[in-house]
């Protein structure tokens, strides 16, 4: 296949950046999208130029590191697929392909196609866990969990934290990412003691970062390479409302003194 690529190049966070055009010939349909970029980078190095910086690691669709907007869609045209699992057989000879980094205020560009997703880590740090120290636990089977609940928790927990949901959202909101973690833990008995605290803390941190607000476009669900359901956002909203009520409750009824 012969292709024309328009690739975003940006030297650093303060550089304005712009598109650079490259023509590729003899691209094999069996290559992954990132292998095609590898080939381009080898030709750039051979020509004495700096290769395109892009994030990637496992190349199996699970680490969440790869992050390219391809023809305007985070992770490209194939539904439920990360960039690293996208293969060139999904494109046609003669195609023009535009490649950009995640575009979101909360994810500043570091160089070329690499962005800083530290905001996601800070949201998890604010409360995306069960507060349990190593060692102080009971036997695993003392805590039965219905298969339905365990499966629902698992489906939400498969989020890979790539940020495609933010990149796809016209507002740059992080609701699907936050909802996935809230939902994972809310479906399990282990998540109950901190359920209200968790949602309040995580949403507060999300608001503190430069993410936009959710106005129900649901582009996030379309872009998610792991098909995380937008229904999780409804659960997040409901839990957040309950969390706010719980935080405002009269102290004498709390029982936790």
């Amino acid at each position, binding site marked *: 296949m012969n292709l024309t690529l328009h690739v975003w190049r940006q030297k650093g966070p303060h550089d304005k950046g712009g598109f650079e055009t490259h023509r590729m010939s003899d691209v094999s349909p*069996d290559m*992954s999208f990132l292998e095609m970029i590898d080939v381009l980078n080898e030709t750039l190095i051979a020509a004495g130029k700096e*290769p395109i910086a892009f994030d990637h690691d496992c190349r199996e669709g699970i680490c969440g590191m790869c992050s390219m907007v391809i023809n305007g869609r985070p992770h490209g045209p194939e539904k439920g697929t990360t960039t690293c699992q996208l*293969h060139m057989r999904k494109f046609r000879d003669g195609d023009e392909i535009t490649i950009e980094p995640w575009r979101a205020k909360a994810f500043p560009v570091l160089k070329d196609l690499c962005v800083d997703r530290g905001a996601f880590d800070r949201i998890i740090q604010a409360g995306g866990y069960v507060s349990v120290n190593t060692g102080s636990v009971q036997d695993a089977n003392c805590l039965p969990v*219905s298969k339905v609940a365990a499966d629902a928790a698992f489906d939400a927990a498969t989020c890979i934290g790539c940020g495609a949901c933010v990149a796809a959202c016209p507002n740059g909101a992080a609701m699907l990412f936050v909802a996935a973690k809230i939902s994972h833990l809310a479906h399990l008995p282990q998540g109950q003691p901190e359920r209200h605290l968790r949602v309040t803390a995580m949403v507060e941190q999300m608001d503190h970062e430069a993410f936009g607000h959710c106005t129900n476009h649901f582009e996030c669900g379309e872009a998610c390479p792991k098909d995380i359901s937008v229904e999780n956002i409804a659960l997040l909203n409901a839990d957040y409302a309950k969390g706010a009520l719980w935080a405002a409750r009269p102290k004498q009824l709390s029982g936790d003194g």
Partner: protein
Amino acid sequence: MKLDAHIPDGPIDEKWDRARFEMKLVNPANKRKFRVIVVGSGLAGASAAASLAELGYAVDCFCFQDSPRRAHSIAAQGGINAAKNYQNDGDSVYRLFYDTVKGGDFRAREANVYRLAQLSVNIIDQCVAQGVPFARDYGGLLDNRSFGGAQVSRTFYARGQTGQQLLLGAYQALSRQIHAGRVTMHTRSEMLDVVVVDGRTRGIITRDLITGKIERHAGDVVLLATGGYSNVFYLSTNAKGCNVTSTVRAWRRGAGFANPCFTQIHPTGIPPHGDHSSKTTLMSESLRNDGRVWVPRNSGDARKPDQIPEAERDYYLERIYPSFGNLVPRDVASRAAKRMCDDGFGVGPSGRGVYLDFGNAIQRLGKDAVAAKYGNLFHMYSKITGSNPYATPMVIYPAPHYTMGGLWVDYDLMSTIPGLFVLGEANFSDHGANRLGASALMQGLADGYFIAPYTVGDYLARVGKSNVTTDHGDFERVEGQVRDRIDGLLSIKGSRSPDSFHQALGRIMWDKCGMARNRDGLHEAIEQIRALKDEFQQNLRVPGSGTDLNQSLEKAGRVQDFLEFAHLMCTDALTREESCGGHFREEYRTPEGEALRRDDDFCHASVWEWQGDNTTPKLHKEALAFEHVHLATRSYK
């Protein structure tokens, strides 16, 4: 170099209890005065960093990815073993211990393996308490499956994404400690050297991958949890960033490197599609529970698989190993596939492939049941290959996957440099010459949650605080060496990219030090590596500078270390004149072609001490005693 494993006295099932009782403790009020450096944020690193911070130590954790959640543990698919015996099928701590020692072909340390089996049960409890969504049955209790080479169902799993869920559990525990201010996390940061002063580890030198800044970090103790070195083969199931840098650089500072030739080639990888393949993708071993492996009975049979009648198929694993069939351990299955392809029975465009067929399973269980078990793997396979495994058998071929060798550690997981601990795949301790399926996650978490938090505390209580700060002359000296090395890579200004050297190295290693090795081939490999190293020094091209994000520079540094390491690996393979586990020397085999272990001469761990550039490293041996699992030929027939 003195190798003392510090194995506690007493019966094997009491050793860990005794060790813990004999350990010195750090006063709770003093713990925060100790600085613990953890390199790596995978299962071993994240679990150790979180657990040590919970105890009150001041922890600094480093990873090269943009978030600790991306470490390659995340890609583990199949599951994690634990001797819970929830299925009432005869499992026990002793049986898991026995299986692991035997599966490792009698090249692991018994005491360590026993402790691993003991701790396996605690890991499951811990992970469930964190909210890891393991698979459950309708009664709400945890489900298990049988996995690679085990005849009991002791593997806990979360669909085909067990590593992801366990890592997110550890990542969340780590995140909680970061929030509490007890862990300082350094992302996009690569460790480039260890600083040793007066025979004790005092800290590390790192490079900030965004700004290029070289940094000094002083600590009272350093834990390396930096994974394995399968990427020495270039094409492996590892993530692209996985590298041997931290362990090679620690080796150059005096840490012994044990059994580098013990590598595991996983039987069920997707074969590379051509010269531009950047990795091989693993298809979980769990597929062998229902999939049947076969090749055409007639060599060179070019018919499509569905046109080859049952009578003309050779289900060779079932034929050669009737009692284990398709479930033989990884090394046995990989070698059998290689043998079939070498003899001309291979399938697929390159002839380097065998079928993994689900036709029977779909007939017996129905497509939906097969999809429920393996749906995500089938989906991944069809994305990568463009072929539908529900209709046509998968084509698979062995791929480098895991490395059993690593830095030598004693029972406390401390290397030969005091104060340098090594956890998870980066150490050599538990899997001998072959790792059983679902045991890597178990070992990483045992080391991180339940061993290092005790043994590191004992070390700190015994030696006290380090009085060396980053102003010390040795920090300056080592930082200077790191800078010189980076400047050296940038100043060669030749014409070949780091990746092209890495690919060339990978081909040498796969051909000569892969699934089968022989004396002549290893000698040739060493010569070729030498020549490639020379060319690297003269003809490397790294565009850009060292003062910003430069992925070519990162790769160049890692490839340089792989080149050095490859030489060591071939030297070790040459010296080990026997076949055991993943190490198959063609000169040493039984009349049936199976691995021939030579216990009289090689019942030891080979530990290599660095002696200087271009000098042959010195070999030390840790003799291995098998008092409980008696030395016997492994047979899966």
